[in-house]
């Protein structure tokens, strides 16, 4: 066992947060804390890239394993990654510095606390993606509630208190059942170690209830219809950096959870509940797309579009095909980039106009041409136009779905059209048309920092749109392994019957 690179990834932002929290704040100290936070999160990003470099995609097993006795004889601290989790870690490490850069204009007060919250959030989320023990996973998964609650509640908009409470209580309610399930797994099998459980397999008769308990947690977090209502509120009220974190990473924790736990641990139950997932996903895709069409608030529209996109993700996961699962992961990464970019873009105009209502905008193209261009890229990314990363994900998911069921895939395809409708209509109303208000004329175009952040997002969206290979090849073997494990379990179960 060499250098504990995963633990360093988890600990580094945490140490940075502690350091910033205890540093004395002078008049200009906020700048120092900001640079420090940026430095910490950026070095974390470099470290994660280095991890990707070291990572061997041809091995199906978990790599970079670290194991440490924690609660003696009960739970071990165990982390490790495979081709699925590494991408999420890199995404997290990539988004966090962007959030920190973006606080410049969006966070007006208590900057230091905000940076602490973001860094703590980062370390918890990286922890979620690399923990290989159910209890450790739960710890990171739930721990994220605390900083996010504060981010929404302290720096949010007008209805921040309501949204923060809703976010917290919804997710907590979903998760407590998962805790019961985790404890039950411990008593059924004698371990909460995921690799051990993968090999052992859980008795089919327990799987259904356990699956439902995990589902209750992930469904809230994904969010799936009908428990998605916290998301628009939380997104709308959170400050820009908070929305970015929520959309780009927090939602992915549930998708990741579905792949790692629901499919990995309870294959038989997953097979059994496929219809449920399909129905909920299709409702999410169609219904929330229609809801998104009617939104007047930009952030709310993007929030609803997130629900629809995550509907594609859950659909893809439960096709249990190579394409479907790869597509889901790709879609999650892509959505992480695109939604982060869209929220940052909304943040840009919100800073200038202090309104998010679509009707207040119009005609930005002549005032802010650069902004219009980047927003175009992001809109097309959200629509899933070929050449952007959004396309690859949706396309793969639909291929996977067609293999399973024509009807489901056909209905899901309608969602693609709807997403084009609401996104392009949003773009049209904001960017084109007449200039209705005089204030718009005074709006300056993107400044250098904004161009820098947004172009950092434009690059991967287009790059992965044309050349998805790096991501796909990283996940390929792990997914093959997962599907193989799934199929053997299903066949075994059939034989037993």
């Amino acid at each position, binding site marked *: 066992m060499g250098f504990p690179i995963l633990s360093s990834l988890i600990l580094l932002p945490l140490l940075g947060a502690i350091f910033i929290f205890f540093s004395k704040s002078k008049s200009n100290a906020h700048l120092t804390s900001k640079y420090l936070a940026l430095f910490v999160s950026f070095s974390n990003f470099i470290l994660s890239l280095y991890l990707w470099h070291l990572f061997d995609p041809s091995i199906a097993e978990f790599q970079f394993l670290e194991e440490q006795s924690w609660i003696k004889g009960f739970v071990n601290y165990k982390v490790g990654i495979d081709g699925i989790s590494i991408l999420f870690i890199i995404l997290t490490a990539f988004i966090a510095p962007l959030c920190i850069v973006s606080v410049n204009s969006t966070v007006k007060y208590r900057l230091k606390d905000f940076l602490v919250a973001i860094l703590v959030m980062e370390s918890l989320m990286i922890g979620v993606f690399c923990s290989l023990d159910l209890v450790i996973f739960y710890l990171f998964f739930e721990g994220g509630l605390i900083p996010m609650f504060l981010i929404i509640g302290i720096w949010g908009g007008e209805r921040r208190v309501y949204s923060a409470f809703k976010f917290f209580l919804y997710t907590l309610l979903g998760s*407590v059942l998962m805790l*019961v399930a985790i404890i039950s797994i411990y008593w059924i099998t004698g371990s909460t170690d995921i690799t051990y459980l993968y090999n052992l397999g859980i008795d089919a008769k327990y799987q259904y209830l356990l699956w439902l308990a995990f589902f209750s947690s992930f469904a809230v977090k994904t969010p799936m219809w009908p428990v998605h209502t916290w998301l628009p509120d939380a997104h709308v009220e959170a400050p820009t950096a908070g929305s970015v974190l929520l959309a780009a990473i927090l939602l992915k924790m549930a998708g990741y959870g579905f792949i790692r736990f629901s499919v990995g641990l309870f294959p038989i139950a997953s097979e059994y509940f496929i219809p449920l997932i399909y129905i909920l996903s299709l409702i999410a895709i169609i219904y929330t797309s229609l809801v998104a069409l009617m939104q007047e608030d930009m952030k709310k529209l993007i929030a609803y579009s997130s629900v629809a996109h995550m509907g594609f993700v859950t659909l893809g996961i439960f096709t249990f095909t190579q394409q479907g699962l790869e597509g889901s992961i790709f879609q999650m990464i892509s959505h992480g980039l695109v939604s982060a970019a869209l929220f940052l873009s909304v943040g840009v105009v919100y800073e200038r106009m202090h309104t998010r209502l679509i009707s207040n905008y119009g005609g930005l193209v002549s005032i802010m041409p650069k902004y219009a261009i980047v927003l175009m890229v992001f809109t097309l990314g959200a629509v899933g136009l070929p050449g952007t990363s959004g396309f690859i994900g949706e396309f793969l998911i639909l291929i996977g779905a067609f293999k399973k069921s024509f009807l489901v895939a056909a209905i899901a395809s309608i969602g693609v059209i709807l997403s084009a409708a609401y996104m392009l209509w949003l773009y049209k109303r904001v960017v084109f048309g007449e200039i209705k208000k005089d204030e718009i004329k005074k709006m300056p175009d993107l400044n250098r920092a904004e161009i820098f952040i947004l172009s950092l997002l434009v690059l991967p969206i287009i790059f992965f749109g044309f050349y998805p290979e790096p991501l796909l090849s990283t996940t390929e073997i792990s997914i093959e392994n997962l599907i193989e494990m799934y199929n053997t379990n299903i066949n075994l179960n059939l034989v037993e019957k």
Partner: protein
Amino acid sequence: MINLNFIYSEIFLCLAIMLFLLIGVFKKNSSYLIYNLSILSLFGCLALIFSFPINISVELFNNSYKIDYLSTYMKILLILSGIFVLLSSSKYIQIIKINKIEYPILILSSVVGMMVMISSNDLILFYIGLELQSLSLYVLASFNRDNILSSESGLKYFVLSALSSGLLLYGCSLIYGFSGSTNFNLISENMNQNSYGVTFGVVFIITGLAFKISAVPFHMWAPDVYEGSPTSVTIFFAILPKIAALAVFIRILYVPFLNIIDQWQIIIVFLSIASMLFGAIAAIGQKNLKRLIAYSSIGHMGYALAGLSTGTNLGIQSSITYISIYLFMNLAFFCCLFMLRRDEKYFENIEDLSGLSKNHPILSFSLLIVLFSLAGIPPLVGFFAKFYIFTAVVEQSMYSLAIIGLLSTVIAAFYYLRIIKVIYFDPEKEIYEKNHSIGLKISLAFSTIFILFYFIYPSPLIEIIEKINII
């Protein structure tokens, strides 16, 4: 000749109490001195406990007094919390002018009573200990004589507590009548499965004990007494009697009455569920922090009882872990309350916390940690407390208890969040004073660090408690 050296710690405290009384009589203005001496004497008592091997198990005085790992652990816990309580409240009692010599002496005598309770292996001795601690507590509750709320709470506590003691005594007499002995070991031997008299006796005893730990439906006194008593007494109420009562609960249920577990298990489960739900729901509407923490402590006792209801060693251990962790959370919470002082006045309403985070970042952060921990959010220590409890509960396949318990944590999270909202999201108010006694700072720092960083190395506490094997 009985080996007296095993109870040196109790004897030492009794002698200290008498000595302090003498000092108080002969020396003018000695309250400050006696207060500090009391803290020292608790340290001495702790040292005496540690001077004996911890693993011994002896029964003294015709098997009526038991020193074993459980009693030793609970006593250490008790005295530690006694020390912290005294350390943190020294300035408070000066400012609200209840720094009489009797105050620390009453606390010490109550501690002696609790130590007797914890070690008792006989119904009579148990009752003596219980009354010693209760009588001291009645006086302590009404110690702030000029305050009408304090007097009311003392009286209320006295009347209700006397009633519950009566029930308890009646239960004891029934047990004696049907088993022919007051000694726990002998009761256990003579226990008859099918005797209604024994069942009634057990129910009465459980009632009396449930009153002491304020489990629903015997909780009515708690909110008023918590609110009315001086805060320095409330913190005492919130921690020490619960430790002692839980120890006795374990001893009584699992030594004499283990054979009839079918008959009392369902009662404990009911007490537990009722307390968890009631504590969570009733606290939502509260405005006074002390009152709110009273309801919250009702809920927390529900979780401790859930562990107790399992009938396994693991369940007992989880309950003891819970109370050990709960102690530090409560301690930290009250330390924060002691810091809300402005112009010689203490503030105890939720609205007084408004915008606290602006001017008191460290204090607010401690409160934040404590409240999230009380709500049971990982990775704070409160989560582990609940986690151990539910591990034990699920082991016995009591899923409904586990699910109700966890759902009530979600309800309870709401009111903890409400306080956090006031601290962090609301507009700021005037600054509170920042000069606090060093003891208070130490207590707060210690408990906050424990709450925050327990997750890094959770094994030691488990390993210590794992050695408690009653069954």
